[in-house]
């Protein structure tokens, strides 16, 4: 793409150079255009040289339209150069004898001079063209093209005089029409509005100087004999073109001068609006990128102060107790905090929309004195009707905040509110992710802690069922193979949830696993477990547990209970609740733990079912927050006790989930069942 453009540029320049060389040679060979044919060929060569030069410069200049002032300055330099040459030649050559020698006119030097003139007017004209099209919203190219046509017509109309001198009215007519078109096209100066105030002042001075310079150039070329003759002899059309461009320059810069003059009063407002728009765009970009609210708050306060013409600005967000400053711009932290608090204390609730506070009023009402400020604007940061904070802008001059200022402050406050909300949401989602990860870890630990194999035998059928809650609870059960065909088992519940509960659970497993190998009395074992846990679990936490030993030879069950839910024994459809005294592990490390703990021995009968469970079953809730309770639980067991253990446990879980289907499961559910089958 770039290569292609280069080629076009080069070819434009090539043609221009080619024609200008041809023109140069032609004029050297034929110093005088005596015949009509020579004149026509010469005019054609001049025209094409100008045309190609124009095309080339147009491509060259169109890339520089971002800085119209520098284009104007270039024109100014060229115009000054032209005037300088004209003035010099006039004063030197005119003074000599008033007549220009033909030899001079045809000398190489004079031809080069004409070339300089030609180049200059093409450059100036091309610049006018670029300025004409700059920042035009509608397509006005028709006007300009018509003018171009009349420029060409004026150029060639001089040739008509060669045929009949009476045709000069036609030349004059084209000339006048071109001037009219020049005037019409000169009013297209939309680009002035987009200059900054400074640039406008600059342009104002430039325009008046240039208008005068072009006027003088026109006057010089009309008055002087030498240059006029020089150009006329070289090419009559070029002289016409030259004077037209000089007129164009004088008119155009005159128009620019007055337009700029009228734009000056609004220049400041325009500047501010432009600044506001660009600041907003910067801010919008920032919102999508910045995760750090502090950084964004700094940008907001800086921009607010600048755009709303305030001396200071600061941003405060609401916290539990009052407000917290996030960013201050050209104001001390303490001052900003005090002022904010005082302003907020002026109203009972909160500022629902942008308000302007008069500081003299504030000084009267509060003990503090804020001499530095005259008025302060306060704007709430509102998202979904909630106010999350405030944006303040303070001024020390008398001038009040006008509508534009207030709109700007409001807009920045809105942006800050959205950004604040975003930052909060991001923080929350990170926290949520972290919690979910934690739950995953806890669930993993729990899975690994629970036994993978259920040690069922012919005489003792066992079923164990565990349903984890969303937030991992601390349920734990385990079986230990003991000597003499005995089986130890534990069902425990660690208070608390999540990863902390999972860790305690892991410790509890270790304690029971090791103690089961050395202590064969459930009561003694629980007392020892309580001692070991002393100091390793938090004051707030406790562990409830049931520990039992079943003798698989004779169906004797010995058990002790440390604060855990009772054990149910279903014997021939009647339920017996076994609840020996005992307090939870970790509730007390004094003698009262051992003193209160009781051990029981029960002789199981054939087909008896022993039910151990966690409080997740009786405390499961429905949408009315009613407990599942012991009655429902017990009747379910007695109704189904003739079935095999899997079926009993399935029925219970089914009924339980049916009961609490509209309420989320808060706690783990554990159900461990034993069935004693006496050998026949």
């Amino acid at each position, binding site marked *: 793409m770039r290569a292609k453009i280069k080629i076009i540029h080069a070819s434009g320049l090539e043609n221009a150079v080619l024609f200008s060389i041809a023109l140069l040679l032609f004029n050297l060979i034929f110093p005088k255009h005596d015949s009509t044919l020579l004149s026509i060929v010469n005019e054609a060569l001049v025209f094409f040289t100008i045309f190609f030069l124009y095309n080339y410069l147009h491509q060259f200049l169109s890339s520089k339209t971002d800085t119209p002032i520098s284009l104007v300055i270039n024109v100014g330099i060229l115009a000054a150069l032209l005037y300088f040459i004209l003035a010099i030649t006039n004063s030197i050559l005119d003074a000599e004898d008033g007549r220009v020698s033909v030899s001079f006119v045809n000398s190489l030097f004079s031809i080069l001079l004409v070339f300089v003139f030609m180049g200059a007017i093409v450059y100036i004209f091309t610049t006018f063209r670029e300025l004409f099209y700059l920042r035009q919203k509608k397509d006005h190219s028709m006007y300009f093209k018509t003018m171009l046509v009349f420029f060409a017509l004026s150029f060639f109309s001089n040739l008509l005089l060669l045929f009949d001198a009476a045709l000069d009215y036609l030349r004059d007519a084209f000339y006048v029409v071109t001037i009219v078109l020049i005037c019409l096209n000169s009013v297209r100066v939309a680009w002035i509005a987009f200059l900054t105030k400074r640039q406008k002042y600059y342009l104002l001075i430039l325009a008046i100087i240039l208008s005068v310079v072009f006027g003088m150039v026109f006057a010089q070329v009309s008055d002087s004999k030498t240059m006029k003759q020089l150009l006329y002899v070289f090419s009559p059309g070029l002289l016409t073109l030259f004077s037209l461009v000089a007129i164009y320059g004088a008119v155009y810069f005159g128009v620019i001068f007055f337009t700029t003059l009228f734009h000056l009063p609004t220049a400041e407002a325009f500047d501010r609006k432009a600044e506001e728009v660009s600041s907003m765009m910067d801010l919008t970009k920032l919102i999508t990128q910045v995760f750090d609210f502090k950084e964004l708050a700094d940008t907001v306060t800086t921009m607010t102060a600048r755009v709303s013409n305030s001396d200071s600005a600061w941003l405060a967000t609401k916290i539990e107790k009052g407000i917290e400053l996030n960013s201050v711009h050209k104001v001390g932290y303490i001052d900003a905090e005090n002022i904010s608090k005082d302003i907020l204390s002026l109203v009972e609730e909160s500022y629902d929309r942008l308000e302007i506070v008069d500081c003299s009023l504030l000084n009267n009402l509060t003990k503090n004195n804020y001499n530095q400020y005259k008025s302060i604007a306060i704007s709430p940061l509102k998202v979904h009707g909630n106010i999350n904070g405030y944006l303040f802008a303070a001024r020390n001059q008398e001038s009040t905040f006008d509508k534009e200022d207030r709109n700007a402050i409001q807009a920045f406050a809105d942006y800050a509110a959205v950004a604040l909300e975003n930052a909060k949401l991001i923080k929350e989602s990170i926290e949520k992710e972290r919690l979910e990860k934690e739950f995953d870890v806890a669930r993993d630990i729990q899975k690994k802690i629970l036994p993978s194999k259920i040690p069922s035998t012919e005489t003792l059928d066992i079923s164990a069922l565990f349903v984890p809650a969303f937030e991992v609870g601390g349920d734990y059960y385990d079986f230990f193979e003991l000597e003499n065909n005995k089986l130890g088992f534990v069902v425990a519940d660690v*208070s*608390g*949830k999540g990863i902390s509960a999972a860790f305690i659970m892991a410790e509890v497993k270790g304690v029971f696993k090791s103690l089961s190998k050395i202590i064969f009395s459930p009561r003694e074992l629980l007392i020892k477990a309580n001692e070991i846990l002393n100091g390793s679990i938090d*004051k*707030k*936490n*406790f562990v*409830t547990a049931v520990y039992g030993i079943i003798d698989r030879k004779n169906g004797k069950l010995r058990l002790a209970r*440390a*604060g*855990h*839910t*009772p054990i149910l024994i279903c014997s021939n459809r009647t339920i017996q609740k076994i*609840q020996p*005294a*005992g*307090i*939870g592990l970790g*509730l*007390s490390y004094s003698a*009262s733990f051992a003193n*209160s703990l009781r051990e029981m021995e029960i002789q199981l009968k054939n087909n008896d079912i022993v039910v151990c469970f966690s409080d997740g079953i009786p405390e499961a809730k429905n949408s009315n*927050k009613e*407990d599942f309770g012991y009655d429902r639980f017990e009747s379910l067991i007695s109704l189904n006790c003739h079935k095999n253990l899997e079926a009993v446990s399935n029925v219970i879980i089914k009924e339980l989930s049916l009961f609490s289907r509209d309420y989320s499961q808060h706690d783990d559910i554990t159900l461990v069942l034993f069935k004693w089958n006496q050998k026949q």
Partner: protein
Amino acid sequence: MADFNVNLRNIETVSVIEVKGYLDAHTAPELENIFNQLLDKKQFKVVVNFDELKYISSAGLGVFMAYVETMRENNGDIKFTNLKENVFNIFDLLGFPILYEFYKDEKEAVQKFNLQG
């Protein structure tokens, strides 16, 4: 989530905490705040009135466990009164009645403190 309300009042030298609604992991910090206030004011004689409490979770129980030691070390105690049957059952199952004093009526508990001096 669940509604919970806690109210603190004084009867002579005894602080009475009334708990209402659901005391669980989410609402327990509110009760902890009250206990912290009492410690700041060096008030160690506490009666907790459960008259309007509907539910207590293990996290709720944990609050009392966390503070009772400090209260007892400073010649005070935490005594529980006016428990509904379902709430008492939870305490009972865990063996709390062995470690804490439970009363049917608030007055009884306050009197007990006064007798102890």
